[in-house]
């Protein structure tokens, strides 16, 4: 396996061939903000928070889904990138109804954390206040579309870790939404295995355990990565 050497925020770093810029940054101890990235499932490059500048390349590149190349000079924290990140977050908060104070994930939410860590203290755009419902038909889990950011982590988890294919995206544009089977009530799903992995994968309060009240919904998406890594590398002898 050959090695790629690059510079990230003035810090030299070497990674294995095929590693992403995000991996490389992690190896160098540099945090690049992400929302749609989750260890264990493939990357989609959708949330655009991890965009970085690479010298000599006019386009901004998503760190999660860009393979690190030799000799690259990468910048992850320029003023421009920080501004774009704040704007992205503003757009997200304005899109659906994210009311942190009344959210099951308050205090444990990646979107909320991202907002303050990027210094987004208010939203300049008009809030859209769309009317999205909740699905409380499942005995164990609930889905609140108002808090969904369409990162599709649950979809990728359901397909590629659990392998059930229950969740998917339907519709498009601002009308895109997460569905269960044929847009049925989750409780009626004939394919859901009740494994709850999607709930573990959710960065916000959109998916939660029934019974959790404000601030009670904690999760460990890292467990999902453990499962898939063990499976791929055949670490568990059974």
């Amino acid at each position, binding site marked *: 396996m050959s090695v790629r050497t690059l510079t990230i925020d003035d810090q030299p770093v070497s990674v294995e061939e095929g590693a992403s810029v995000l991996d490389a940054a992690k190896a160098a101890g540099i945090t690049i903000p992400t929302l749609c990235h989750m260890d264990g499932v493939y990357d*989609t*490059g*959708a*949330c*655009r928070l991890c*965009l970085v500048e690479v010298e000599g390349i006019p386009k*901004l*590149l*998503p760190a999660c*889904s*860009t*393979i690190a190349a030799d000799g690259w000079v990468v910048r992850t924290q320029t003023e421009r990138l920080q*501004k*774009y990140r704040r*704007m*992205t977050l503003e*757009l*997200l908060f*304005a*899109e659906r109804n994210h009311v942190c104070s009344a959210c099951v994930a308050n205090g444990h939410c990646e979107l909320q954390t991202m907002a303050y860590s990027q210094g987004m203290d208010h939203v*300049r*755009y*008009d809030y*859209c206040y769309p009317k999205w419902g909740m699905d409380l038909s499942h005995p164990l889990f609930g889905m609140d579309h108002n808090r969904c*950011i*369409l990162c599709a982590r649950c979809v990728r988890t359901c397909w590629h870790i659990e392998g059930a294919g229950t969740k998917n*995206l339907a*519709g*498009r*544009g*601002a*009308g*895109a939404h997460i569905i269960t089977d044929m847009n049925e009530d989750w409780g009626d799903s004939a394919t859901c295995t009740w494994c709850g992995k999607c709930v573990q994968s959710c960065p916000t309060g959109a998916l939660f355990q029934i019974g959790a009240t404000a601030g009670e919904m904690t999760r460990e998406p890292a467990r999902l990565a453990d499962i898939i890594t063990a499976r791929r590398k055949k670490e568990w002898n059974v």
Partner: protein
Amino acid sequence: MTRTELNEIKEAELAARKRTTIRCCMAAGCTSQGSGELLKNLEAAVSEAGAEDEIEVRGVGCMRLCCQGPLAQADPGGPLYEKLEPSDAKAIIESILSGEAAKLQTGDPKHPFFAKQLSVVLGNSGEIDPERIESYIAADGYQALRHALREMRPEEVVQEIMDSGLRGRGGGGYPTGLKWQTVSKARGDKKYIVCNADEGDPGAFMDRTVLESDPHAILEGMTLAAYAVGADQGYIYVRAEYPLAIERLQKAIKQAKKAGLLGAQIMESPFNFSIDLRIGAGAFVCGEETALMASIEGRRGVPRPRPPFPAESGLWGCPTLINNVESFANIAPIVRNGSQWFAGIGTEKSKGTKVFALAGKISNTGIVEVPMGTPLRTIVEEMGGGAPDGGTVKAVQTGGPSGGCIPADHLDTPVEYESLSALGSIMGSGGMIVMDETTNMVDVARFFMEFCRDESCGKCIPCRTGTVQMHHLLTKIIDGKATARDLALLEELCDMVKHTSLCGLGMTAPNPVLSTLRFFRGEYEELLQPDPYANGRPTAVPTS
């Protein structure tokens, strides 16, 4: 099909020509105005007059001047009839038989609209019967393929395209030969050719014209590409909105298969290539190549980040060559006539011709093909005849929702990839919408933003929600509820969406706003309300 057979078909077809041929336009513009019935009536009138041995009635592809349709013309040397009614058929036949002019509206073939055109892509359009392969073969069709298969190695075909200087006609203008070379060098046993016929730009109908008028030219171009890069399977991804194009492509594929021009051992060479049609289902974003590939694979038409580019990893992870309709239509003429001939047309950096669809507030709407470098003014004012009813041209919109509005005082700009992008627009696929002084530019910007908002796939945040907010801000401005602060917010958002979106749709969605702001800023500012807090502290407290 052997070389001799190909020539036999050509000669038989030419030998069967009758003294007079009436070409009747059967492309979408004229059929929507009743040319189908006209064609039937013409045929009936011919048999009624017992002139079957004298006159051939041929349904042909686009005859270009859509606004005067239905069109028909008698060869050789007959007038171009305009605005025909189905009932005019008899008069036309009588005129041919008697040699006396019919009392029908005729057009002037010397008008700049026709005289300034140069046909490479549309050479067969309006001439041959698009539903008969023999008609295409008679016009030297499949000669380029025959030549390439017998006399050229694949890398020579690639070289020929590189030497021609052809650049992608789908919008970006990436050198076609370079793309071919990448795919031909890419490792992989399986490679694919894709023809992007998902012409989604509102106001663009060039590809539709080509597909409806000369479908075999696309098949031949794709087959040449497949031979050049080593692919054995091709797809044409065509919009469901183009039923006539689909029908003709289906027919053409069937005919080519039967003639041994598609399938196994084409023209008795070891080369195999098949083409399948894939019908789009109403998603503009599928014009983006990674979304298009997802759609061909039967998935949601959602783009993915590039790299990897399709040339390395495309359909099912295999190297894939994607070109648009007009690019493929250029291939056979280049191989047939040589790269030097093609490179002699156009300008230094933009070679060949470009097809434009003229529409909007312009006298002569229709299809024109001009050499690259032709000034916009020539196209809009001379050929297009300017704005109708004594109006004045205010701006020309090129490039659809990804393009921009070029103001009238920049009309001397030559049509080239670089010169158009310097004006904040793009060549795009070739839609050209003319606006006159009654068109409000803020309204136009909002129209395109609404389009992008509705067509966003919803994957990346800047495009999905940025277009919603930009549309909202534009609406606020139009409704007279916005201040300078809102305009600043809009401009900032345009910059952000342009630079952070995942695919071309989002990256170019702000262009119509940016270009109208650049040239028509006054129209925005006129609509703004005074901001009482413009300087932080209020000048006068507004009462609610």
